[in-house]
Protein backbone atom coordinates (compact mmCIF):
# COMPACT_ATOMS: atom_id res chain seq x y z
CA UNK A 1 0.00 0.00 0.00
CA UNK A 2 2.69 2.46 1.00
CA UNK A 3 4.66 1.51 -2.13
CA UNK A 4 1.78 2.73 -4.25
CA UNK A 5 1.58 6.01 -2.39
CA UNK A 6 5.34 6.55 -2.74
CA UNK A 7 5.08 5.89 -6.47
CA UNK A 8 2.14 8.25 -6.72
CA UNK A 9 4.10 10.98 -4.99
CA UNK A 10 7.04 10.26 -7.31
CA UNK A 11 4.82 10.59 -10.38
CA UNK A 12 3.19 13.79 -9.21
CA UNK A 13 6.58 15.34 -8.46
CA UNK A 14 7.99 14.31 -11.83
CA UNK A 15 4.94 15.69 -13.63
CA UNK A 16 4.90 19.02 -11.85
CA UNK A 17 8.65 19.51 -12.20
CA UNK A 18 8.41 18.74 -15.91
CA UNK A 19 5.81 21.44 -16.48
CA UNK A 20 7.80 23.91 -14.42
CA UNK A 21 11.05 23.07 -16.24
CA UNK A 22 9.33 23.44 -19.60
CA UNK A 23 8.08 26.87 -18.59
CA UNK A 24 11.50 27.95 -17.36
CA UNK A 25 13.15 26.69 -20.54
CA UNK A 26 10.75 28.57 -22.78
CA UNK A 27 10.82 31.80 -20.83
CA UNK A 28 14.58 31.94 -20.32
CA UNK A 29 16.22 34.92 -22.03
CA UNK A 30 19.71 33.50 -21.62
CA UNK A 31 20.14 30.90 -24.36
CA UNK A 32 22.80 28.89 -22.54
CA UNK A 33 20.55 28.62 -19.51
CA UNK A 34 17.72 27.47 -21.74
CA UNK A 35 19.93 24.75 -23.22
CA UNK A 36 20.97 23.37 -19.84
CA UNK A 37 17.36 23.45 -18.71
CA UNK A 38 16.42 21.59 -21.87
CA UNK A 39 19.00 18.89 -21.10
CA UNK A 40 17.57 18.56 -17.60
CA UNK A 41 14.09 18.41 -19.12
CA UNK A 42 15.20 15.53 -21.37
CA UNK A 43 16.54 13.59 -18.40
CA UNK A 44 13.36 14.05 -16.41
CA UNK A 45 11.19 13.28 -19.44
CA UNK A 46 12.95 9.92 -19.76
CA UNK A 47 12.05 9.23 -16.12
CA UNK A 48 8.45 10.15 -16.90
CA UNK A 49 8.35 7.76 -19.88
CA UNK A 50 9.68 5.02 -17.59
CA UNK A 51 6.86 5.66 -15.17
CA UNK A 52 4.36 5.63 -18.06
CA UNK A 53 5.55 2.08 -18.81
CA UNK A 54 7.14 2.99 -22.11
CA UNK A 55 10.79 1.95 -21.77
CA UNK A 56 11.30 2.04 -25.54
CA UNK A 57 10.38 5.70 -25.70
CA UNK A 58 12.42 6.38 -22.57
CA UNK A 59 15.44 4.87 -24.27
CA UNK A 60 14.94 7.03 -27.36
CA UNK A 61 14.42 10.13 -25.20
CA UNK A 62 17.56 9.35 -23.21
CA UNK A 63 19.71 8.97 -26.32
CA UNK A 64 18.27 11.85 -28.33
CA UNK A 65 17.04 14.26 -25.67
CA UNK A 66 19.77 14.04 -23.08
CA UNK A 67 22.68 13.17 -25.32
CA UNK A 68 22.56 14.35 -28.90
CA UNK A 69 20.39 17.47 -28.82
CA UNK A 70 22.36 18.82 -25.87
CA UNK A 71 25.61 18.60 -27.82
CA UNK A 72 23.91 19.90 -30.96
CA UNK A 73 22.44 22.95 -29.22
CA UNK A 74 25.72 23.76 -27.50
CA UNK A 75 27.52 23.64 -30.84
CA UNK A 76 24.82 25.76 -32.46
CA UNK A 77 25.15 28.30 -29.66
CA UNK A 78 28.90 28.47 -30.23
CA UNK A 79 28.31 29.14 -33.94
CA UNK A 80 25.67 31.72 -33.12
CA UNK A 81 27.84 33.63 -30.68
CA UNK A 82 30.73 33.58 -33.16
CA UNK A 83 28.56 35.03 -35.91
CA UNK A 84 26.90 37.70 -33.75
CA UNK A 85 30.31 38.73 -32.50
CA UNK A 86 31.47 39.15 -36.08
CA UNK A 87 28.39 41.21 -36.92
CA UNK A 88 28.99 43.46 -33.95
CA UNK A 89 32.56 44.04 -35.05
CA UNK A 90 31.46 44.82 -38.59
CA UNK A 91 28.94 47.32 -37.30
CA UNK A 92 31.61 48.97 -35.23
CA UNK A 93 33.88 49.34 -38.26
CA UNK A 94 31.07 50.80 -40.32
CA UNK A 95 30.09 53.29 -37.67
CA UNK A 96 33.57 54.53 -36.96
Amino acid at each position, binding site marked *: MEEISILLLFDVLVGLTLVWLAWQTLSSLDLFRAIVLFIAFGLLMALAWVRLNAPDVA*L*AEATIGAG*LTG*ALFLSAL*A*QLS*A*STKRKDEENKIENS
Partner: protein
Amino acid sequence: MRKIKLKILEKKPSLFTRLTLGILMFLLAASLAYAVWSLPTQALGLSAEVAKNVEMSGVSNPVTAVLLNYRSYDTLLELGVLLLALFGVWSLGGVSANKSSFVNPILDFLSRFLVPVFILFSGYLLWVGGFAPGGAFQAGAVLAAAGVLLFLNDWQLERKYSGFSLRFVLVLGLVLFVAIGFGFVFLDRVFLEYPPQLAGGLILLIEAAATLSIGISLAALFLGRDPSVKSDSKIDTGVHK
Protein backbone atom coordinates in the same frame (compact mmCIF):
# COMPACT_ATOMS: atom_id res chain seq x y z
CA MET B 1 30.51 33.05 -24.51
CA ARG B 2 28.82 36.28 -25.10
CA LYS B 3 25.41 36.49 -23.71
CA ILE B 4 22.96 36.02 -26.50
CA LYS B 5 19.49 37.21 -25.84
CA LEU B 6 16.47 36.72 -27.95
CA LYS B 7 15.81 40.16 -29.38
CA ILE B 8 12.18 39.39 -29.96
CA LEU B 9 11.56 38.94 -26.25
CA GLU B 10 13.12 42.19 -25.17
CA LYS B 11 10.09 44.22 -26.14
CA LYS B 12 6.99 43.34 -24.28
CA PRO B 13 4.15 42.59 -26.71
CA SER B 14 1.05 44.73 -26.56
CA LEU B 15 -1.87 43.93 -24.33
CA PHE B 16 -4.03 43.03 -27.32
CA THR B 17 -1.52 40.46 -28.59
CA ARG B 18 -1.13 38.93 -25.19
CA LEU B 19 -4.87 38.80 -24.61
CA THR B 20 -5.56 37.19 -28.00
CA LEU B 21 -2.81 34.65 -27.47
CA GLY B 22 -4.11 33.94 -24.00
CA ILE B 23 -7.62 33.27 -25.27
CA LEU B 24 -6.34 31.07 -28.08
CA MET B 25 -4.16 29.09 -25.69
CA PHE B 26 -7.05 28.70 -23.31
CA LEU B 27 -9.29 27.40 -26.10
CA LEU B 28 -6.59 24.96 -27.16
CA ALA B 29 -6.10 23.73 -23.60
CA ALA B 30 -9.85 23.42 -23.10
CA SER B 31 -10.31 21.41 -26.30
CA LEU B 32 -7.40 19.15 -25.37
CA ALA B 33 -8.88 18.64 -21.93
CA TYR B 34 -12.24 17.88 -23.53
CA ALA B 35 -10.62 15.37 -25.87
CA VAL B 36 -8.96 13.58 -22.99
CA TRP B 37 -12.15 13.75 -20.95
CA SER B 38 -14.27 12.22 -23.69
CA LEU B 39 -11.96 9.24 -24.21
CA PRO B 40 -13.75 6.00 -23.45
CA THR B 41 -12.61 4.72 -20.09
CA GLN B 42 -12.26 1.17 -21.31
CA ALA B 43 -11.13 1.26 -24.90
CA LEU B 44 -10.50 -1.91 -26.82
CA GLY B 45 -7.11 -1.00 -28.28
CA LEU B 46 -5.06 -3.00 -30.69
CA SER B 47 -2.69 -4.24 -28.03
CA ALA B 48 -4.50 -7.56 -27.63
CA GLU B 49 -4.30 -8.12 -31.37
CA VAL B 50 -0.59 -7.25 -31.33
CA ALA B 51 0.08 -9.60 -28.46
CA LYS B 52 -1.83 -12.43 -30.15
CA ASN B 53 0.13 -12.22 -33.38
CA VAL B 54 3.51 -11.32 -31.99
CA GLU B 55 5.07 -14.72 -32.71
CA MET B 56 4.15 -14.32 -36.38
CA SER B 57 6.12 -11.09 -36.61
CA GLY B 58 9.49 -12.70 -36.05
CA VAL B 59 10.38 -10.73 -32.91
CA SER B 60 9.06 -10.95 -29.38
CA ASN B 61 9.27 -7.27 -28.42
CA PRO B 62 5.83 -5.91 -29.35
CA VAL B 63 7.16 -2.40 -30.05
CA THR B 64 9.66 -3.69 -32.59
CA ALA B 65 6.97 -5.93 -34.06
CA VAL B 66 4.69 -2.93 -34.59
CA LEU B 67 7.42 -0.68 -35.96
CA LEU B 68 9.06 -3.14 -38.32
CA ASN B 69 6.24 -5.45 -39.31
CA TYR B 70 2.63 -4.42 -38.71
CA ARG B 71 3.24 -0.77 -39.35
CA SER B 72 6.52 -0.69 -41.19
CA TYR B 73 5.45 2.40 -43.17
CA ASP B 74 6.13 4.33 -39.99
CA THR B 75 9.78 3.32 -39.83
CA LEU B 76 10.23 3.53 -43.58
CA LEU B 77 8.96 7.09 -43.76
CA GLU B 78 10.95 8.02 -40.69
CA LEU B 79 14.13 6.96 -42.46
CA GLY B 80 13.05 9.06 -45.43
CA VAL B 81 12.39 12.11 -43.25
CA LEU B 82 15.81 11.86 -41.69
CA LEU B 83 17.43 11.68 -45.11
CA LEU B 84 15.42 14.67 -46.35
CA ALA B 85 16.46 16.67 -43.30
CA LEU B 86 20.08 15.91 -44.09
CA PHE B 87 19.59 17.01 -47.72
CA GLY B 88 18.11 20.23 -46.42
CA VAL B 89 21.07 20.88 -44.16
CA TRP B 90 23.58 20.08 -46.87
CA SER B 91 21.85 22.29 -49.41
CA LEU B 92 22.22 25.25 -47.06
CA GLY B 93 25.94 25.32 -47.72
CA GLY B 94 27.61 24.97 -44.43
CA VAL B 95 29.06 26.29 -41.28
CA SER B 96 32.77 26.37 -40.87
CA ALA B 97 34.31 23.87 -38.54
CA ASN B 98 34.45 25.51 -35.16
CA LYS B 99 37.85 24.34 -34.11
CA SER B 100 39.00 24.82 -30.59
CA SER B 101 42.72 24.55 -30.51
CA PHE B 102 43.46 22.92 -27.21
CA VAL B 103 44.67 19.36 -27.00
CA ASN B 104 44.07 17.62 -23.75
CA PRO B 105 45.51 14.14 -23.13
CA ILE B 106 42.69 13.22 -20.74
CA LEU B 107 40.00 14.21 -23.20
CA ASP B 108 41.88 12.29 -25.84
CA PHE B 109 41.98 9.15 -23.70
CA LEU B 110 38.35 9.50 -22.68
CA SER B 111 37.19 9.79 -26.28
CA ARG B 112 39.38 6.93 -27.44
CA PHE B 113 37.89 4.75 -24.73
CA LEU B 114 34.28 5.85 -25.14
CA VAL B 115 33.92 5.62 -28.93
CA PRO B 116 34.33 1.80 -29.09
CA VAL B 117 32.03 1.43 -26.08
CA PHE B 118 29.39 3.50 -27.90
CA ILE B 119 29.67 1.34 -31.00
CA LEU B 120 29.49 -1.85 -28.93
CA PHE B 121 26.48 -0.60 -27.00
CA SER B 122 24.79 0.41 -30.23
CA GLY B 123 25.15 -3.17 -31.45
CA TYR B 124 23.78 -4.42 -28.15
CA LEU B 125 20.70 -2.20 -28.41
CA LEU B 126 20.12 -3.37 -31.98
CA TRP B 127 20.29 -7.02 -30.94
CA VAL B 128 18.23 -6.61 -27.79
CA GLY B 129 15.51 -4.78 -29.78
CA GLY B 130 14.11 -8.12 -30.90
CA PHE B 131 12.90 -9.11 -27.46
CA ALA B 132 13.25 -6.11 -25.12
CA PRO B 133 13.27 -2.31 -25.35
CA GLY B 134 15.83 -1.19 -27.91
CA GLY B 135 15.91 -1.16 -31.66
CA ALA B 136 17.21 0.59 -34.72
CA PHE B 137 16.50 4.19 -33.79
CA GLN B 138 17.97 4.00 -30.30
CA ALA B 139 20.97 2.05 -31.56
CA GLY B 140 21.44 4.59 -34.35
CA ALA B 141 21.34 7.45 -31.88
CA VAL B 142 24.05 5.86 -29.74
CA LEU B 143 26.11 5.29 -32.88
CA ALA B 144 25.61 8.95 -33.74
CA ALA B 145 26.88 9.89 -30.29
CA ALA B 146 30.13 8.14 -31.15
CA GLY B 147 30.34 10.28 -34.28
CA VAL B 148 29.56 13.44 -32.31
CA LEU B 149 32.35 12.61 -29.88
CA LEU B 150 34.75 12.18 -32.78
CA PHE B 151 33.70 15.49 -34.34
CA LEU B 152 34.11 17.24 -30.99
CA ASN B 153 37.70 16.04 -31.02
CA ASP B 154 38.21 17.68 -34.42
CA TRP B 155 38.21 14.39 -36.23
CA GLN B 156 37.59 14.57 -39.95
CA LEU B 157 36.25 12.01 -42.32
CA GLU B 158 38.93 11.07 -44.79
CA ARG B 159 38.39 12.53 -48.24
CA LYS B 160 38.22 9.18 -49.94
CA TYR B 161 35.27 8.08 -47.80
CA SER B 162 33.31 11.30 -47.86
CA GLY B 163 32.00 10.91 -51.40
CA PHE B 164 30.32 7.79 -52.64
CA SER B 165 30.94 5.62 -49.55
CA LEU B 166 29.26 8.08 -47.23
CA ARG B 167 26.24 8.50 -49.50
CA PHE B 168 25.97 4.74 -49.91
CA VAL B 169 25.78 4.21 -46.13
CA LEU B 170 23.32 7.10 -45.77
CA VAL B 171 20.76 5.60 -48.15
CA LEU B 172 21.49 1.96 -47.31
CA GLY B 173 18.73 1.61 -44.72
CA LEU B 174 16.02 3.13 -46.89
CA VAL B 175 17.07 1.27 -50.06
CA LEU B 176 17.27 -2.10 -48.34
CA PHE B 177 13.91 -1.56 -46.67
CA VAL B 178 12.19 -0.66 -49.94
CA ALA B 179 13.99 -3.42 -51.83
CA ILE B 180 12.92 -6.11 -49.40
CA GLY B 181 9.41 -4.65 -49.30
CA PHE B 182 9.15 -4.77 -53.08
CA GLY B 183 10.95 -8.09 -53.33
CA PHE B 184 8.02 -9.94 -51.83
CA VAL B 185 5.52 -8.15 -54.04
CA PHE B 186 6.79 -10.39 -56.82
CA LEU B 187 6.16 -13.42 -54.62
CA ASP B 188 2.43 -12.64 -54.37
CA ARG B 189 2.53 -10.66 -51.19
CA VAL B 190 1.58 -7.10 -50.27
CA PHE B 191 4.22 -4.35 -50.17
CA LEU B 192 6.22 -4.67 -46.93
CA GLU B 193 4.71 -8.01 -45.99
CA TYR B 194 7.24 -10.63 -44.97
CA PRO B 195 6.71 -14.39 -44.80
CA PRO B 196 6.54 -15.27 -41.09
CA GLN B 197 9.34 -17.83 -41.15
CA LEU B 198 11.76 -15.28 -42.61
CA ALA B 199 10.48 -12.25 -40.73
CA GLY B 200 12.92 -12.44 -37.80
CA GLY B 201 16.01 -12.52 -39.98
CA LEU B 202 14.71 -9.89 -42.37
CA ILE B 203 13.83 -7.53 -39.55
CA LEU B 204 17.29 -7.91 -38.08
CA LEU B 205 18.83 -7.23 -41.49
CA ILE B 206 16.70 -4.15 -42.10
CA GLU B 207 17.32 -2.89 -38.59
CA ALA B 208 21.08 -3.32 -38.93
CA ALA B 209 21.09 -1.31 -42.16
CA ALA B 210 18.72 1.26 -40.66
CA THR B 211 20.93 1.62 -37.57
CA LEU B 212 23.94 2.43 -39.75
CA SER B 213 21.99 4.93 -41.84
CA ILE B 214 20.33 6.61 -38.85
CA GLY B 215 23.58 6.82 -36.92
CA ILE B 216 25.57 8.29 -39.79
CA SER B 217 22.73 10.71 -40.73
CA LEU B 218 22.41 12.03 -37.20
CA ALA B 219 26.16 12.47 -36.89
CA ALA B 220 26.19 14.25 -40.27
CA LEU B 221 23.39 16.51 -39.08
CA PHE B 222 25.54 17.41 -36.10
CA LEU B 223 28.43 18.25 -38.41
CA GLY B 224 26.05 20.51 -40.32
CA ARG B 225 27.72 20.42 -43.74
CA ASP B 226 28.59 18.07 -46.53
CA PRO B 227 32.01 16.67 -45.56
CA SER B 228 33.01 16.30 -49.21
CA VAL B 229 32.74 20.07 -49.67
CA LYS B 230 35.63 22.05 -48.32
CA SER B 231 34.14 24.19 -45.59
CA ASP B 232 36.72 26.93 -45.34
CA SER B 233 36.45 28.00 -48.94
CA LYS B 234 32.68 28.45 -48.78
CA ILE B 235 31.71 30.43 -45.77
CA ASP B 236 34.02 32.10 -43.36
CA THR B 237 32.35 32.85 -40.07
CA GLY B 238 35.26 35.03 -39.18
CA VAL B 239 36.05 33.56 -35.80
CA HIS B 240 39.74 34.17 -36.41
CA LYS B 241 39.44 37.69 -37.82
